[in-house]
């Protein structure tokens, strides 16, 4: 049988201070970045227009920008999108676009060129903030119901352990988005929620083993039980992460721009989630004071 990990016996608990240090550092950096740098919110959350135009002839960014500044629109981002005929334009939500509708506006300022609109997205300010609020609620509801389920199915302490790992994953994944200024839109939020589900899946598998071992391995100390359980589930954790990463990578390669942000968030989230279910979830159990079951 082909095995990634052969009879591993890593003493995770002996070195638990190292991942705790790394994780804390990453979390502090992420939180600092949330405060100092904030997020590069996509229009889903910040309102505005994204317009993707396909011109019949090649165009230059400078030219397009000139067309906008001649119409007294300065707050515009123009970038080529795949070819020099495809242009992606981001605009703020301005009165003039609403009054005379953005399509007419584009037709006017590009009257000398011929083009078609490949994509047009507009989110108004109110809808944007509603989407943001809904997203925050969804995240909180997800975390809370998971806590309840795990607490009922296992014990409260496992619930706390699982939530610790999840909050850790969410903060660091969002931290990467904040630090590198990656666009944070609805699809990224979906990815973060998927990561929550995914990373939880990993943690639960380990917890399930801990609960089982805690009953049958009477001679071992609690830290040894934790070590043993992580080691026993290690190859499963890695195999599953690997297969999931395979598909995420193929989404990154072929999925196109529409799912790019989603795939990036998933990619980061799965790596962080795998790391946390190995190094953070069980470690946090030891800090929360997990006990051996009472001898009957």
């Amino acid at each position, binding site marked *: 049988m082909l095995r990634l990990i052969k009879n591993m016996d890593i003493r995770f608990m002996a070195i638990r201070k190292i991942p705790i240090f790394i994780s804390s550092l990453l979390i502090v950096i992420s939180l600092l970045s949330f405060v100092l740098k904030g997020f590069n919110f996509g229009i889903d959350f910040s309102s505005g227009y994204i317009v993707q135009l396909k011109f019949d002839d090649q165009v230059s960014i400078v030219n397009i920008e000139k067309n906008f500044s001649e119409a007294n629109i300065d707050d515009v981002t123009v970038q080529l999108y795949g070819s020099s005929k495809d242009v992606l334009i981001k605009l703020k939500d301005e009165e003039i676009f*609403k009054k005379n509708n953005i399509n007419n506006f584009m037709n006017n300022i590009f009257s000398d060129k011929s083009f078609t609109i490949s994509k047009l997205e507009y989110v108004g300010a109110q809808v944007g903030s509603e989407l943001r609020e809904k997203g925050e609620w969804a995240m909180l509801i997800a975390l809370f119901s998971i806590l309840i389920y795990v607490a009922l199915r296992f014990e409260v302490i496992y619930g706390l352990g699982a939530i610790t790992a999840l909050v850790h994953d969410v903060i660091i994944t969002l931290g990467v988005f904040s630090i590198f200024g990656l666009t944070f839109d609805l699809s990224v939020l979906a990815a973060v929620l998927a990561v929550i589900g995914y990373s939880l899946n990993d943690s639960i598998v380990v917890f399930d083993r801990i609960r089982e071992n805690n009953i049958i391995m009477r001679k071992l100390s609690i830290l040894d039980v934790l070590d043993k359980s992580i080691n026993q589930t290690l190859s499963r954790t890695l195999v599953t992460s690997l297969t999931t990463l395979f598909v995420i990578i193929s989404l990154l390669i072929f999925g196109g721009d529409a799912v790019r942000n989603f795939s990036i968030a998933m990619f980061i989230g799965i790596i962080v989630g795998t790391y946390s279910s190995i190094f953070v979830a069980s470690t946090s159990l030891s800090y929360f004071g997990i006990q051996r079951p009472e001898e009957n």
Partner: protein
Amino acid sequence: MSRYPLWKYILVILVMAYSVIYTLPNFYDTYPSINITNYENRQISTDEITNIVSNNSFSYMGTNGNSIYFKSIDDQLNAYNILSSNKKFIYTLSNYNQIPSWLHAINAQPVSLGLDLKGGVHFLLQIDTENVKKSRANQLESNLRNFLIDNGIRYSNVQNNNNEVKFSLVNKNLNEETLSVLSDTFSDYDVTLIRENEQQNLFARLSDDSLADDVKASMTKNLAILRSRVDELGVSQPIIQKQGKDRIIVQLPGLQDSTRAKNILGSTATLEFRLTKGTPEDWVASDTMGATTVGESILYRQKNGSPILLSRNVIASGKDIEGANSGFDSQTNQPAVFVNLSSYGASNMLETTSRNIGNRMAVIFVEQDKSEVINVATIREAFSKRFQITGIDLQEAKDLAILLRSGSLSAPMSIVEERTVGPSLGSENIISGRDSMILGMILVILFMFIYYKNFGLVANLALFANILIITATLSLFQATLTLSGIAGIVLTVGMAVDANVLIYERIREELLNGNSPNASIVSGYNKAFSTISDANITTLIAAVALLTIGTGVVKGFAVTLVIGILSSMFTAIIGTRAVISIIYENKSNKGLSI
């Protein structure tokens, strides 16, 4: 190894049979089509269809029953434009797929694609509640004025902040009797009398309940108006839905360009007819002075920007128009809108025109805060019900006719969200989704085979079964598949093998602990079961939380994720177990290919 229960085999076979059958329709091509029916009995003979096809020159692929189908949406729309001029029949844009009738009979249909995959426009329109409030407050103000005048109560000052109307009364004492009549008459409002330093002020406020009722009524009316406007756009299978208290979703699949839809949907445009006042010299003089020089007149602008004075009195307006059609003026061949007035509007028009022969009448295009005179013509003879309006181009005439026919929105609606995807980008998205799924599957399948050998092959079988089950479920429930939905399926592909990985790792452990192959299989499945269900239920919780956000991108992803989680649990716990049982049951296995 004990026998695997028969009912589980049967269940697996049934589920797979259902999945294959309901996945089938997706392998038949779907073409854009036009359905044709006549007005009398909503039917049409095959001969008539053959006639229509041979009498017109448009490219088409074939005919089927009462429909003609096309290679592309372009061809379909082209034919639709040509056919629409023949008013003998009713034409509806639709889709035609070649799926056999027995699949039709069991309601097996292809997966319905989201707008991001097939192209189209999604609008979220919001009613202007402030406007509803404002018109209600104005109505209240004028009703109160009338009441006070009728009852001989004098007032010196009126303030209206669109929420509350305040009358400063001159009479020192408003008697109790009048006050109680007042409250009865205006029972929909909160009416109070407050004394401030010798000054009596009458306050009337709109109650929240009655305002909410107004918004509700406006929504119902606007919904109906939007439906009739969308019908005029010629889109197949549009969706028009109320969302929440004050919003309406409009989805127009296959629409190439949102410009026209936007000009029409949210438009409050209507017409007004007024007599002109003064002479062209007066108009210019008024414009330079900045105030009108002729009594009872208002300064307007014509299309070319030049000034014009019009009467304060409106002869007829949009609400008096019963019908409208676009066409061409029979003499000048200019684009025109033919208007039919209601009996009230017609008698008003007749009275005004018969008294003003030789005078001029203006047609004003009114849109929210914009009014423009589109046409001024001398009244040559008295007219009443039917007349025509020129002075606009063909597209404007067409759009105006639609707007006049549908009636004007009872309160303005503005677009608060739009997502438009062109058809070519839509098909690019389908290809992206398909390619990433294929690559993802190849990688996972190879890995599982290399790592778990024969057991890996069984897991791969389960993977295909998963894709079939997801596709079939989406088809059966006609859930919309979006690009994010495809991402959900791709992710499920990665995670679907997880349940099998859990089981196989357990079996390996049992083998390494020196258990017999058969015992290892049984205890591997048994021990992994609780882990699989715990892990998947928690993921399911996260997926359901995603569903509650309920918006496009996220919802599409969550739906496929939920179906994926359930189907992967089924295939791993019951499905692969059945296959493994067939291979290893009742044999003395020396080792396992795992």
